[in-house]
């Protein structure tokens, strides 16, 4: 019988790590700057998921506060990048 802890350790976290690696390929490759912005946003979103799983595994609910701040920073970063990329075209 597989325990839930082993399932989180050996299935869920490796899947999320592989996802981050795949997104990093796009982050380095991306032809336009908007591709990189979207890839960075996705990296941070997957990071929120990894923090959540880690807080379940280590039984520390305090880590969810970090996830809140990270979600806020990801949104602000995406909006700021979009704003300045659009402004850059006007000049």
């Amino acid at each position: 019988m597989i325990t839930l802890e082993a399932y989180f350790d050996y299935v869920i976290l490796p899947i999320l790590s592989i996802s981050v690696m795949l997104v990093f390929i796009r982050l380095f490759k991306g032809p336009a700057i908007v591709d990189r912005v979207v890839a960075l946003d996705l990296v941070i979103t997957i990071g929120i998921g990894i923090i959540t799983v880690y807080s379940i595994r280590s039984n520390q609910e305090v880590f969810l506060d970090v996830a809140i701040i990270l979600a806020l920073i990801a949104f602000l970063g995406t909006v700021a990048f979009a704003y300045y990329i659009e402004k850059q075209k006007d000049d």
Partner: protein
Amino acid sequence: MIEIVLAILSTVGALSILFASIGILRMPDFYLRLSVTVKASTLGVGLLLICAAVMFPDVSVTTKAIAIIFFLIITAPIGAHMIGRAAYFTGTPLWKGTIIDELAGMYNDETHELESEESDTDDDREDDAPNIAKTDEETE
């Protein structure tokens, strides 16, 4: 019993995040990549947070998880819309198999406002052609 529910929730969440990252790597076009990524990753992280909310027997954790899910669902479409709009203005080409671009010529070039009819200025008619890529290398 509760462990089976947790296993199902976390599996579906992790798999949809994996599909989002495969999509951002394999899709041929920026707009298709954006469309795949935002929805699938929001669903995946939301399911993992529901998993945490079920796991901890505490009201404060449930409140925090619901707050993060609410914030993600509110902000992800706004960010995606803004970055897609910025990409369209900076001339990111569409995939070469694109059939129709209904936004072509509908934006006012100075004010960036969307209009319901094409503007009648004939001097920049060639700018109104949809920006569709000729080859796969332009978008990939």
